[in-house]
């Protein structure tokens, strides 16, 4: 049992921390990046490619960096601290996850280098108007057509879906709407005929798109994983994504915790620093407890994210998400309360971190959803 980073991981952390600090240390810059057409600055994306970040989880022999969930955690924590807006999660973690576990060698050989050099971005089109958090609730259909498929349906709130070069789409090839079997995962060109996207900003300053698939034709090579057996692949990649989100949330919480304490030390009212008031000290102490509990579970999620047995992996990752959601809500709300009016303004970073945490809570399952998974698995502590 050890929680230390290796020398290589420490180097990685130094370089990504420095990168995010340079890019986002001055919070004003974030507004400029968001104003770009894609919602992020292509030059920063190229910078991440140069650092090797976009190759992070891919195998070394395929041109990757060979990093595991801990490396992803390190990168995502930095992203969370800086509230970075690049499509790292959707392209490298989620899209990359589908390629690593669903693509054959030739597809990986063709696409991994393009992700690594920054020329290809991906997005995961999963959510549907009626699905909520159920990954198996898929109405979008993929009808067999010759040796290929024809896709019809609607996907909503696809993170970075408006700028992605390719979309990972879950669709039903067999069975009824909520069957676990009969789901297939496809990699679809974003400019495929019949595919339309309507881009939008998200509440936390990222970009998303609603995607309509109207008789979109794909070849057999578009299938990721096995036909009709896509759900385990989706669950696996989503768990990896949740672990990454947990780390991002910890980064955002750590930053909020720090700027709240700084504020308590410097803000003067009644002739003293407000941090001298015990009512506020205790709330700041409770924030710290919440952050540390979240950090522990983000580490747990990272260590379980690529566990092969889903019966062990899923409840563990869900448990982590429950803790992250709860800590994130508390830390976000308290950071705003303890900093008073200034944190209510868009001019100040704390409010933006609060918003990002609130949206992470709503990504890939809220507290109730994951608590249900934990309680149904009933595997953390056995009955006497």
């Amino acid at each position, binding site marked *: 049992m050890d929680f230390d980073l290796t020398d290589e991981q420490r180097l990685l952390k130094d370089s990504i921390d420095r990168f995010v600090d340079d890019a986002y240390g001055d919070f004003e810059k974030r507004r400029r990046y968001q104003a770009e057409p894609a919602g992020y600055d292509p030059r920063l994306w190229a910078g991440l490619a140069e650092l090797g970040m976009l190759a992070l989880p891919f195998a070394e022999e395929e041109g990757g960096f060979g990093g595991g969930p801990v490396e992803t955690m390190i990168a995502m924590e930095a992203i969370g601290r800086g509230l970075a807006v690049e499509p790292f999660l959707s392209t490298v973690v989620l899209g990359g996850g589908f390629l690593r576990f669903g693509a054959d060698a030739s597809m990986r050989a063709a696409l991994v280098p393009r992700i690594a050099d920054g020329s290809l971005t991906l997005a995961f089109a999963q959510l549907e108007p009626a699905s909520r958090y159920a990954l198996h609730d898929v109405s979008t259909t993929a009808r067999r057509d010759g040796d290929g498929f024809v896709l019809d349906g609607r996907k909503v709130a696809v993170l970075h879906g408006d700028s992605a070069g390719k979309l990972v789409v879950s669709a039903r090839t067999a069975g009824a709407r909520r069957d676990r079997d009969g789901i297939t995962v496809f990699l679809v060109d974003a400019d495929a005929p019949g595919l339309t996207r309507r881009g939008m900003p998200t509440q936390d300053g990222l970009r998303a798109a609603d995607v309509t698939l109207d008789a979109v034709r794909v070849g057999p090579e578009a299938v990721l994983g096995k036909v009709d057996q896509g759900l385990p692949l989706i669950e696996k990649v989503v768990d990896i994504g949740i672990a990454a989100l947990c780390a991002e949330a910890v980064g955002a919480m750590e930053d909020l915790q720090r700027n709240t304490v700084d504020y308590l030390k410097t803000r003067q009212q009644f002739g003293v620093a407000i941090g001298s008031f015990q009512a506020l*000290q205790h709330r700041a*102490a409770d924030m710290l407890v919440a952050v540390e509990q979240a950090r522990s579970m983000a580490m747990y999620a990272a*260590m379980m994210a690529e566990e092969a047995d889903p019966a062990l992996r899923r409840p563990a990752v869900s448990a982590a998400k429950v803790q992250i959601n709860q800590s994130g809500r508390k830390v976000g709300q308290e950071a705003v309360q303890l900093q008073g009016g200034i944190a209510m303004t868009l001019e100040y970073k704390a409010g933006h971190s609060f918003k990002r945490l609130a949206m992470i809570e709503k990504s890939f399952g809220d507290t*109730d959803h994951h608590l249900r998974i934990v*309680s149904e698995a009933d595997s953390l502590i*056995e009955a006497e």
Partner: protein
Amino acid sequence: MDLRFTPEEIAFRDELRRFFRTEIPAEIRRKVSEGRHLSKDEIVTSHRILNAHGLATPNWPVAWGGKDWSPVQRYIFTEELQRAAVPLPLQFNVYMVGPVIAAFGSEEQKRRFLPATANLDIWWCQGFSEPGAGSDLASLKTRAEKRDGKYVVSGQKAWTTLGQHADWIFCLVRTDREAKKQRGISFLLIDMKSPGITVRPVLTIDGGHEVNEVFFDEVEVPAENLVGEENKGWDYAKFLLANERTGIARIGMSKQRIARAKRLAREVQAGGGSLWDDVDLRRRVAAIEVELKALEITQMRVVAAQRHRDADKPDPASSILKIKGSELQQATTELLLDIAGPYAQPAQEDGRNAAAEHGMDAIAPLYFNARKVSIYGGSNEIQRNIIAKAFLGL
């Protein structure tokens, strides 16, 4: 970064599991599991079995019967002990006075007290708190005056846990009334049979006799019973309190209670089936399990970090463990209370009533009693003060 135990650590854990479950009498473990008070004999029996196998004082220096264990092994030991519902070896002996004597006592004191303390031939109690000195411990007033080569002690100690069984008491006493609060305190070992000592039982809200008041009326204490230097007692007390706080999270105990709650919920009938069919209840259990898992990892992070720290210095993270650990201990007793439901009401211990059949008659007292864990060991408010000052610099 790796959360898993090594194969050696797993073997170590499995051996402890086997040992606890085969060597400690099942009846004693059942009482612990149901949250009942133990008799003096039961505590002594269990403690001596541990000591006979060198397991009562693993935290002591090796020369005095301690184990050369890694922080991880220590952690596993405490967890497994609690998980198996083995009574903790007497805390006052093992985590409090023993280490203080080993670190600051004279050679004579070590020889005289340590082996007997390890084997619970001497039962110690802790005389720190007073009616006027709770969280502000340094304001204590019990005084010891040097007369004819002896200390003469007068005053009152409060909350003395299991003082009714004790042979000796270790006390903080004021030896210099002129000095600044913390500077005039000494650490004194006092024989409970000394003339002038009276013990008055105080029943706690669960009805148990756990704490006492101890009165000192001109009690003569030989000068050689002073530990370390006169007026340095506060330093020894801080060392002791830091030891008290390690392992304070009681994660193994909370796990054991959740395991029991799950069993009871399956046994208790409700709504034509069992209580465990109630999805809301199961989700509540899951929510506590999640927080406990987080705390377990937080605890492991603290344990792992000990490798990089001065082993004698407590980690300030122990305040986080104390707050969250006590909150979760209390949450598990609330859970048990809610599962017992109407069966929580009959008050007859071990009696013949419906509640007793499932061992549920002791649940309400357990819930009442567990309110103490956020009060003692440095109250949770004091822990938040520590975090705010020592961690956050407020």
